[in-house]
């Protein structure tokens, strides 16, 4: 708006951005993207050439039923594990050395050993205690491989969920506890009404991770005669020796995990929308 800008110097468009140099990063980036695109194209091409309507008709429904088994197994074990994790968390946070020690041992053992070892111990190990279990009437439960898997998964996820919950509760500021005490609330009221809601927000992301890890970990039940998605895949491969069985399984698992991850991210964003500045 001065003499200079209006008459002497006319408005010019912004200078064009300099051409991007073909630096090492750009070359490697382009090459890698080309590699991924080629891999995807190769995958689609392989599935197209290996497409056999007989096999799809024969094994497709089995894959879907395996998928259902996986989801049911994971869903129930996560729910039961959540219920079991509450007393374990309280035990971990307890000042009592015996209870605290027991809870610590439980969590350490189930987080420190592989899930597959836990599953084998429960499935094969309890099998050798058949008479004792029959005497107590528990054999009916442990006879079925699905139940053994459910039991092993529940124990395992309860340990992880206990740690997640404990970390989340610890992350709630001390001031919240003190404020509740000042208001005259007792410990149980404080826990359920003040601390837990705030803790669950922090715990949301690790819980999502745990569900995803459980879905991926559930693949091992195929090794103890449960026909989940992985079990059906191995059965299909053992009859046809066609590698595409594993590729389809990979597609199923990948879609499941990604869908869950995206849904969970949306859920977290929605529940923490009051925290955004």
């Amino acid at each position, binding site marked *: 708006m001065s003499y200079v800008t209006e008459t002497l110097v006319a408005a010019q468009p912004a200078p064009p951005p300099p051409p991007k140099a073909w*630096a090492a*990063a*750009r070359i*490697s*980036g*382009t090459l*890698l*993207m080309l*590699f*991924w695109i080629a891999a995807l194209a190769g995958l689609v091409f392989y599935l197209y050439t290996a497409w056999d309507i007989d096999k799809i008709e024969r094994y497709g429904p089995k894959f879907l039923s395996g998928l259902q088994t996986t989801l049911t197994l994971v869903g129930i074990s996560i729910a039961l594990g959540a219920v079991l994790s509450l007393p374990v968390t309280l035990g971990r946070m307890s000042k009592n050395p015996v209870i605290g020690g027991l809870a610590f041992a439980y969590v*350490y*053992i189930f987080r*420190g*050993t*592989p*899930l*597959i*070892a*836990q599953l*084998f*111990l429960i499935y*094969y*190990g*309890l*099998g*050798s*205690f058949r008479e004792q279990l029959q005497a107590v009437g528990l054999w009916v439960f442990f006879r079925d491989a699905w139940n053994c898997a459910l039991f092993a998964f529940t124990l395992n996820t309860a340990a992880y969920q206990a740690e997640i919950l404990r970390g989340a509760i610890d992350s709630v500021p001390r001031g919240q506890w003190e404020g509740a005490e000042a208001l005259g609330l007792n410990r149980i009221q404080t826990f359920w009404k003040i601390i837990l809601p705030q803790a669950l927000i922090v715990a949301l992301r690790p819980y999502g991770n745990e569900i995803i890890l459980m*879905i*991926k*970990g*559930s*693949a*091992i039940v*195929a*090794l103890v005669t449960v026909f989940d998605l*992985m079990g059906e*895949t191995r059965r299909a*491969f053992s009859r046809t020796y066609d*590698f595409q069985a*594993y*590729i389809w*399984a*990979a597609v199923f*698992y*990948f879609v499941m*995990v*990604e869908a869950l*991850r995206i849904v969970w991210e949306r859920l977290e964003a929605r529940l923490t929308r009051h925290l955004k500045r």
Partner: protein
Amino acid sequence: MDSYLTLLSFGDQGWSDEIAWGVLVTVTLALATLPVGLFIGFMIALGKQSEERSLRTAADIYTTIFRGLPELLTLFIVYYGLQIGIQLILKLVGLQGAIEINSFVAGVISLALVFSSYASEVFLSAFRAIPKGQYEGGYALGLRHGTVMKKIVLPQLIRIALPGLGNLWMILLKDTALVSAIGLTDILRQTGIAARVTKEAFLFFGIAFILYLVLALISSIALNRLEAQGKRGEQRQ
């Protein structure tokens, strides 16, 4: 009780030598995977924070794939598929000959693929924790990119990333148990064979359990020492 001791002895009658071999295979597998996984993870992390969008996307695709597939499935795909894939490529190029992918190599490759995708996330958050000023100070002193990375960034990076990487090491130790499914003679497979042959399933799988716990205990002691060593320069609050 006597029979249990016989079963657990070293030598022809006992299974302890087979199980000891299994421990050796497990530890070797984990130790072999570690450098490969760390290196690839570091490279992917560098790629993820690059200014070049194609590089970032390529790195993201890598981690999405290998964090989205079950480890057992990755193992089977590498074990059964990699051999077929290599043969196909060799045929396309016209070369003859057999490159054999044995179970150990398949195990190392698949475990390294999974380890590196999780490690890249740990490295990425560690990179973000290093102030930009460290890089700028290095450049102001006239050091090149590589020297800045090696002498200034890397020591701090390792210290920050250590807890996360320690966690991943514990997970790696547990994931090695999966290679029993492709015939590799690790702890779980050896105890499994012992359990099958002697019908003492609880004894031998219990031993496998204890062995994994011992490995985890040794690892956490070693990792605590490493972390304490790394923190020795920090001021006491």
